[in-house]
């Protein structure tokens, strides 16, 4: 290359950023023609929802796979692959009448045999939550091509919630039966019944889904395609929303402190609806096997030292509500009038004195270790706030840090003094609440079990009875009783009901239409 040519090339290169044909970076980046770009982080390991149920897998996979039901904001079931259903009086038999015109993405018809195969074989092997539900079945039978009957061994009131997409994604029998599910080649090109079909996955960059023209609900989906843009950095995700490169973000895509700024932008709409199914509850967890946390007076004192409204306003930036007990206000059987532990440092100090934990010459009563959850800014601040709040009671908190694997190992093996935890309620106390308090779930090595080590036979009995009652009143009675006991016993220090921000382009309508929000199938979403 001659020097003159090289100079020309150099000048062209320098002019490139401002070149007219590519000048409009924003318009160039947007998804045209009724399509949507949604943010996704981290990159899911697979889109094969029956195989993996991590959050990003659900967000993307639930557009491809479906289950029998969908749920409204008040958690009442709505048709999806089942157009109607009956539950017998004794609560033992669930009969689902399936849609007749649904097809798999490869054109094969969807039938009751797919449901039987998924629920009695594939998910039983692969899906821990589905296994917990379908183990309760005496039989799962296809009466005909469009009717499937689940017969339970004993009544289990929340069984209906087992048919939410991420809880029981239905897989095609004709592709998976008799194969090694985990290594089936179809896992790379997932085939579901959902409103969007798999098109392409450029690892590290994006996942491309296109509208399913044969979708069984007429006029849907309303979008032509969905790109899931994988952006690992929260600041970059905020930029993507700001510049219009992405039109949808949910869960933790945007840091809490950035939500208000983005929500105020004229082209973005903001909602906290769509997380009712999960209804996550956040708490400070103490290891009750260790002193002095096994002393109720100490736990009560710690509760009085913690200011929930400070956490809501300064750490969650308004994206939370104070928790009042073990059941979130968005979960059925929530009891509103439970006694509360108001923020009161004097009362806390009196309780600590009463517990015999006198202040030393340095003003400290005891030293404890707090294991910070290594999942981002919010968790670090929760740890720092805990240290600050406890100092007012003379409790010296040493913060410990680790990575997620280390945190999981230490908490599940009970090698901690205090930490934070966040647990999904999964639409019913029998599914997402009882597991944290019943003694049968004190299982070493298992996360999200009763890791604090709380035991109370009365609580065990009430949770067990409530799960099998067939009337709402009978269940409420037991859950009310158990909530009162737990609030008195303080097995954990409940802090907040988490709210997540969903931000989307305000030209879009019907994006968040039910209790699973961005985890839903987005069949209704469209441009106005």
């Amino acid at each position, binding site marked *: 290359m001659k020097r003159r040519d090289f100079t020309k090339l150099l000048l062209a*290169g320098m002019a490139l*950023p401002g070149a007219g044909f590519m000048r409009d970076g924003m318009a160039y980046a947007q998804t045209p023609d009724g399509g949507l770009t949604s943010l996704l982080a981290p990159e899911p390991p697979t889109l094969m929802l029956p195989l*993996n149920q991590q959050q990003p897998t659900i967000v993307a996979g639930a557009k491809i796979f479906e289950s029998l039901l969908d749920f409204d904001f008040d958690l009442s079931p709505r048709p999806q692959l089942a157009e109607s259903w009956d539950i017998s009086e004794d609560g033992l038999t669930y009969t689902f009448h399936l849609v007749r015109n649904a097809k798999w993405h490869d054109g094969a018809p969807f039938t009751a045999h797919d449901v039987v195969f998924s629920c009695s074989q594939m998910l039983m092997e692969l899906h821990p939550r589905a296994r917990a539900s379908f183990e309760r079945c005496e039989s799962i039978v296809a009466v005909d091509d469009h009717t499937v009957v689940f017969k339970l061994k004993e009544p289990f009131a929340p069984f209906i919630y087992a048919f939410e997409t991420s809880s029981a994604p239905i897989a095609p029998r004709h592709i998976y039966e008799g194969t090694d599910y985990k290594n089936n080649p179809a896992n790379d090109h997932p085939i579901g019944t959902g409103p969007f079909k798999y098109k392409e996955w450029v690892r590290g960059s994006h996942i491309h889904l296109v509208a399913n023209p044969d979708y069984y609900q007429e006029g849907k989906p309303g979008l032509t395609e969905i790109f899931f843009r994988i952006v690992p950095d929260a600041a*970059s995700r905020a930029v993507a929303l700001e510049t219009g490169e992405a039109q949808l973000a949910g869960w933790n895509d945007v840091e809490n402190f950035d939500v208000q700024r983005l929500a105020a932008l004229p082209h973005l709409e903001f909602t906290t609806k769509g997380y009712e199914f999960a209804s996550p509850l956040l708490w400070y967890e103490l290891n009750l096997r260790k002193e002095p946390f096994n002393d109720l007076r100490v736990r009560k004192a710690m509760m009085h030292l913690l200011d929930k409204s400070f956490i809501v306003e300064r750490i969650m930036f308004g994206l939370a509500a104070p928790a009042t007990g073990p059941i979130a206000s968005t979960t059925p059987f929530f009891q509103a009038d439970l006694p509360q532990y108001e923020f009161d440092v004097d009362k806390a100090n009196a309780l600590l004195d009463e517990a015999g934990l006198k202040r030393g010459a340095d003003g400290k009563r005891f030293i404890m270790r707090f294991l910070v959850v290594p999942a981002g800014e919010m968790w670090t601040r929760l740890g720092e706030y805990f240290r600050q709040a406890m100092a007012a009671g003379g409790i010296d908190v040493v913060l410990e840090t*680790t990575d997620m694997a280390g945190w*999981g190992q230490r908490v599940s093996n009970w090698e901690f003094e205090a930490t934070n935890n966040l647990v999904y309620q999964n639409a019913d106390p029998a599914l997402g609440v009882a597991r944290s308090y019943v003694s049968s779930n004190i299982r070493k090595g298992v996360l999200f079990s009763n890791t604090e080590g709380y035991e109370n036979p009365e609580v065990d009995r009430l949770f067990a009875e409530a799960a099998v009652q067939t009337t709402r009143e009978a269940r409420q009675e037991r859950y009310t009783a158990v909530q009162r006991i737990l609030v008195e016993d303080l097995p954990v220090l409940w802090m907040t009901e988490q709210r997540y921000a969903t931000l989307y382009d305000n030209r879009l309508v019907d994006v968040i239409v039910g209790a699973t929000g961005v985890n839903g199938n987005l069949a209704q979403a469209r441009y106005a």
Partner: protein
Amino acid sequence: MMHALRLLLGRVTGIAFAILAIATINFVLVHSAPGDPALVIAGQSGATDAKFIEQVRADYGLDRPYLVQLGTYLGKVVQLDLGYSYRQRRAVSELILERLGPTLLLTLSAFVLSLVGGVLFGALAGRRHGSWSDLTISMMALLFYATPVFWLGLMLVLVFSIQLEWLPAFGYSNMRSGTFGTFDQAVDVARHLVLPAVTLSAIYMAVYTRLMRSSLIEVQHEDHVRTARAKGLTEAAILRHHMLRNAAVPVITFAGLQAGALIGGAVVVETVFAWPGLGRLTFEAVTARDYPVLLGLFLVTSILVIAVNLLTDLLHRLIDPRVVTR
């Protein structure tokens, strides 16, 4: 000839042993960290199910004795098999290969940019030692040296993507670039490359600038430069033929040593700019405690660093003939 062959053979054998030693050390280090990948997978799946955790452990051989796992791993490395990702359920070599291209593009661009920029600015500053341009360049170099990489990246995005709207904020290419022609695809990637490459190169450019400057100041007082001047050569010729080449030797040596750090820096830059390279794969593998991917990445990175050092040695010989005769 025989001597050179023996030398090469010795070098290759040394490298092979070094790679095996690196693989063993990596394995021991990664597995010594507290934490169980099975629990991470179970936790992220919301699984309160001991059976599931056992299943994950059995699936990935995590339930086998430590030494058996190490032996199996080394055996596979010898056969160039890097194993299977816990999280992504795909061959590690496949995962690394598809990310290698973007990382090489980014790091090489940043390497060239920093080296060329560093030598140019350093020469300019060193040549006019004590002048305003020297002061400005030195101050800028100090500033960029002290600027955190992620912060610089975000500021560049703020200016060039949000305010001026000139360049894309992140990503490797437009998601529709598959429908573009070859030229447009190349332009598209180039536009996406500008900000991450500049971000990654800034700190190294600052280092090379300072190094080149001080090296040139030192060289210009040496005897051979004085002799060249006495011979009546022009200042430009002296600079080109007698100063730059000598002053560049420490810069090239240092640049070779920095290759590993450059790949390390790519972890941050690739995360900020959603660049689908090895750095991001490392970040994701660390978060998920995906041992096979981490070990594969460490091994490939080590080999890359060894290769760059070899290349630096060669370049050294090219620039400094004394190395060959020594």
